[in-house]
């Protein structure tokens, strides 16, 4: 057996947030704004309150009463009081005896809103590329700029300048389980069981939004039916808690899938202009400008722009550069973190651009990228030193396989091969703590995360322990508890679980090893083994049953506990290069190169991916089956955003395709055979040199597919996803000047 969580998941015993229920519970439903922008005149609750089964309708006024004496973050009110900023913004919440009653009552709430003019998209703010001073535009809520070197000189000296404009569209996480929680308020304590990627940051958010003390909030994570960034922090919990406070009863609140698409925090569109000065077979100067639709995000709270823009430059050396990014506030729901927030989109643009320059030079695109790829010890454009980093090896291997595949496909005929590169930074910085508890028969990892699917908690953490103490998997167990009793952890994001929380487990395990060795009279390390159902500890020739090494007090207290903490180093960028806003400093660099074989139907533009290979600089692979499954999953999610997935918005700010029918994630029959390769040689900051693998597998995919399409057709597509219609347009199969979408 590969993972201990499998039997219960396969037999349906595992219960998720959506499955929460208890006697006497009420069902909640949200009242969502029917307009994208407007002045809220009032909400009419009378009709809803009179409907059968309705126990509470809570809006801004009721919230004030329920939270009297508490002051929440004024910038994050539970419900808006004045201006509605996007369609789907929660305006009120209803609790009733059945879900159907709650939803019917939510529909019956009258929303009196005077519509205001809306900003639907980037183009409505900047029909042309903005000049200097765009940072002052009222719709721009964040502006970042960095530069280094003599860019003008490089452009003057260039043999040619490659200048391109790219576009990306919104993508949604599509965790199959919608956001769901069950809340209760008891004796001044705000208790919620919820499907979350990060119980502790959910606790922090709830405390900040409701204005209640963090100690009075208790978050208990459930099994999570997929996260992908969408279940980080608080989402539905504050509404459920208010309904519970209002009724004095437990309240279940879950989004339906249309709501999930609308307010589940998806990613939004961007427009990017990339320009390269090319001389002597190299890109010597690079200018990158990003306009990012951040939806109704609050000024100052845009995390995405400074985070995303670093990905537009790498993983390539350049002598001189300038990058500038603007977060454009629109009347869409706020931008959220979708697996590797904006890195796949940036890699698509940056790597399509590099591929295009190589083709214009008439050189091999892989060789061209090898000329530029960061090597360990190089500095990034923002001045960070690249640590252990296997981009060159990944590219070399992908290039070699490309040459093999090239021989196996017919020349022309619509077939094409492409390589995409991507880098990521394992978040080694966020903190985590864990306790390892040893009993005479088992080892228990006490910690505060829930498994979201990748296996990083149920398999990654035990694998670390197994390696330190040489114990078989059968005697290792992971326990979970709520934020009141579990050791602190930052959450499952940024590929950090094994590297960060795993680091804490490693430290605890090493502490336990040393303590056992001490009890065995040794100054070295101890290992554990299993014999006849009991655990034995061994150090420098001495071997005794664990039962004899533990004190009666320890056995009475459930075992010997050793704690470990991991608070990693922060990265540093060269501040002298930054002239506006803030950029994200990467911590532990990781690389990947992917290879795609596609077929393009040259009459319809339809693209099929026939074969795929992924090479990952993953440091030391802690658990090979989990590694393979994780890469396969990321690649297929990336194939969706490369080819079929995009959110479509009307000029009125309405999401046109909020369903799994019209937002098309890949299905089984479409998936190509995928080869997965670990490329060793560069140790990460995680236990034993592990690197994170949550985000990296999705990052290079759109670039690999786009470059393969360019190889197959000789034509570049500047917008993702590469829908058949966009490819057909690029192939000039459609009349010019027709309506685009």
């Amino acid at each position, binding site marked *: 057996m590969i993972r201990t969580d499998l039997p219960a998941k396969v037999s349906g015993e595992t219960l998720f947030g959506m499955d929460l229920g208890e006697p006497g519970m009420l069902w909640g439903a949200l009242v969502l704004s029917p307009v994208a922008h407007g002045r809220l005149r009032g909400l009419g609750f009378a009709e809803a309150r009179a409907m059968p089964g309705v126990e509470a309708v809570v809006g801004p006024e009721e919230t004030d009463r329920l939270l009297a004496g508490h002051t929440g973050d004024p910038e994050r009110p539970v419900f808006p009081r004045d201006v509605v900023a996007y369609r789907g913004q929660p305006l009120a919440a209803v609790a009733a005896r059945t879900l*159907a009653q709650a939803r*019917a009552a939510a*529909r019956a709430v009258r929303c009196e809103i005077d519509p205001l003019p809306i900003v639907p998209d980037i183009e409505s703010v900047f029909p042309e590329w903005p000049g200097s001073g765009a940072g002052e535009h009222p719709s721009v809520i964040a502006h970042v700029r960095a530069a280094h070197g003599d860019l003008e000189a490089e452009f003057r000296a260039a043999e040619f300048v490659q200048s391109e404009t790219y576009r990306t569209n919104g993508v949604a996480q599509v965790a199959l389980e919608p956001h769901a929680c069950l809340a209760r308020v008891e004796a001044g304590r705000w208790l919620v069981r919820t499907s979350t990627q990060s119980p502790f940051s959910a606790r922090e958010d709830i405390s900040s939004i409701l204005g209640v003390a963090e100690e009075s909030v208790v978050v208990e994570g459930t099994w999570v039916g997929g996260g992908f960034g969408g279940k980080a922090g608080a989402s539905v919990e504050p509404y459920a808690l208010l309904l519970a406070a209002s009724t004095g009863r437990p309240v279940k609140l879950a989004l339906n899938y249309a709501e999930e698409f609308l307010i589940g925090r998806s990613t939004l569109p961007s427009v990017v202009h990339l320009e390269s000065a090319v001389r002597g077979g190299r890109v010597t100067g690079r200018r990158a400008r990003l306009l990012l639709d951040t939806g109704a995000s609050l000024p100052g709270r845009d995390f995405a722009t400074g985070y995303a823009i670093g990905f537009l430059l790498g993983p390539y050396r350049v002598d001189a550069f300038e990058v500038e990014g603007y977060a454009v506030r629109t009347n869409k729901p706020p931008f959220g973190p979708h697996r590797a927030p904006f890195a796949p989109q940036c890699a698509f643009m940056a790597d399509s651009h590099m591929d295009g320059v190589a083709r214009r030079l008439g050189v091999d695109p892989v060789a061209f990228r090898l000329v530029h790829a960061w090597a360990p010890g190089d500095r990034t454009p923002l001045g960070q030193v690249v640590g252990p980093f296997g981009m060159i090896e990944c590219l070399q291997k992908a290039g070699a396989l490309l040459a093999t595949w090239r021989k196996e496909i017919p020349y022309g005929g619509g077939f094409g091969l492409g390589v995409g590169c991507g880098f990521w930074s394992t978040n080694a910085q966020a903190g985590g703590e864990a306790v390892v508890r040893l009993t005479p028969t088992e080892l228990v990892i006490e910690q505060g995360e829930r498994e979201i699917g990748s296996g990083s908690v149920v398999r990654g953490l035990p694998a670390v322990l197994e390696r330190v103490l040489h114990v078989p998997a059968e005697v290792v167990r992971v326990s979970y508890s709520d934020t009141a009793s579990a050791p602190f952890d930052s959450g499952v994001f940024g590929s950090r679980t094994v590297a960060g929380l795993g680091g804490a487990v490693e430290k605890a395990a090493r502490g336990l090893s040393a303590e056992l060795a001490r009890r065995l009279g040794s100054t070295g390390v101890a290992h554990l083994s299993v014999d006849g159902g009991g655990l034995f500890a061994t150090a420098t020739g001495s071997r005794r049953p664990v039962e004899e090494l533990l004190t009666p007090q320890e056995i009475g207290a459930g075992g010997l506990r050793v704690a470990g903490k991991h608070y990693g180093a922060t990265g540093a960028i060269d501040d002298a290069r930054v002239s506006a806003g803030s950029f994200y400093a990467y911590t532990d660099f990781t690389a990947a190169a992917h290879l795609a074989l596609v077929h393009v*139907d040259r*009459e*319809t533009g*339809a693209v099929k991916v026939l074969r795929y290979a992924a090479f990952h600089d993953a440091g030391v692979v802690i658990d090979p089956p989990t590694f393979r499954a994780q890469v396969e999953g990321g690649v297929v999610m990336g194939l969706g955003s490369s080819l*079929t997935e995009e959110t*479509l918005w009307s000029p009125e700010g309405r999401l*046109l*395709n909020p369903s799994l*029918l*019209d937002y*098309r994630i*890949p*299905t*089984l*029959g*479409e998936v190509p055979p995928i080869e997965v390769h670990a490329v060793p040689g560069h140790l990460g900051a995680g236990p034993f040199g592990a690197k994170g693998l949550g985000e990296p597998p999705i990052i290079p995919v759109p670039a690999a597919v786009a470059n393969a399409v360019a190889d197959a057709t000789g034509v570049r597509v500047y917008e993702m996803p590469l*829908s*058949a*219609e966009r490819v*057909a*347009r690029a192939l000039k*199969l*459609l*009349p010019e000047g*027709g*309506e*685009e*979408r």
Partner: protein
Amino acid sequence: MGFTLVAPERPEEACEILASAAPGQVAVLAGGTDLLLDLDSGRSHPDRVLSLRRLPWRSLQWNGPTLTIGSTLPLSEIEVDPVVRARIPGLWDAIHGVGSLQLRHRATLGGNLGRASPTSDLIPMLLALDASVEIVGVQGIRSVPVDEFVLASRSTALRVGELIASISIPEARPSAYVWQRVRPSNDISQVGVAVARASRAPFWRVALGGVTPRPVRLPEAERELRAERPLTPEVVRAAEAAATHAPFATDKRATETYRRQLVGVLVRRAIAMVSAPLDRPVGWA
């Protein structure tokens, strides 16, 4: 929500229930895979839902050359019939491409026709097969060609107190249904092309889905196909006629211009599949 479910055993009873109700009061449930979405979203809020599941209409039979399919037979039952697949391959293509297997286990041909979705993949094929609809009602029994049955988006020729009892296809025909979808499984076609070759002149039927406001026959394309085995110039002219005359519009699935490009390609491919059936690929273009 909040309706009463009735499931009569005799067609007369079912028609009586419909005839005695005001418009919109009774919704008809054949498989439910489309109706239940409307009930959930509140687009439809009938007092009663009339289930057809007990009616004696889950049948499939050949009478000489004619195939008659009961209106409540699940699509998957038609799909697994080897005779249907061999003799009317286009019908198999169209049915097999509907939704998922789970959906086809419940969805029915009668339900698909009765709901008259503008995006139906089955109606174009039924048009190309010259299928007709047998209707029972309080006034008696009548038969209407599919082309006259489907009036517009979500609108049919059914009168008060009438139900679809069965669908008849007059003869087995070499045929094909090809489509383009963003995703091959569980998606709605951007364009669907149904082509069938009749046993006597005029030989060819061409019908389209993904058009507005309802699937249509395309006589302009059919007229170009004179020979039983048309030569390339004829096929090209038919494809061009289809691209010119198809009543396409722009929606969230595709623009009108792209649909015109697609239909020209798919008409050629569908005719080729019917003319040279040996190495036909399955529906997905």
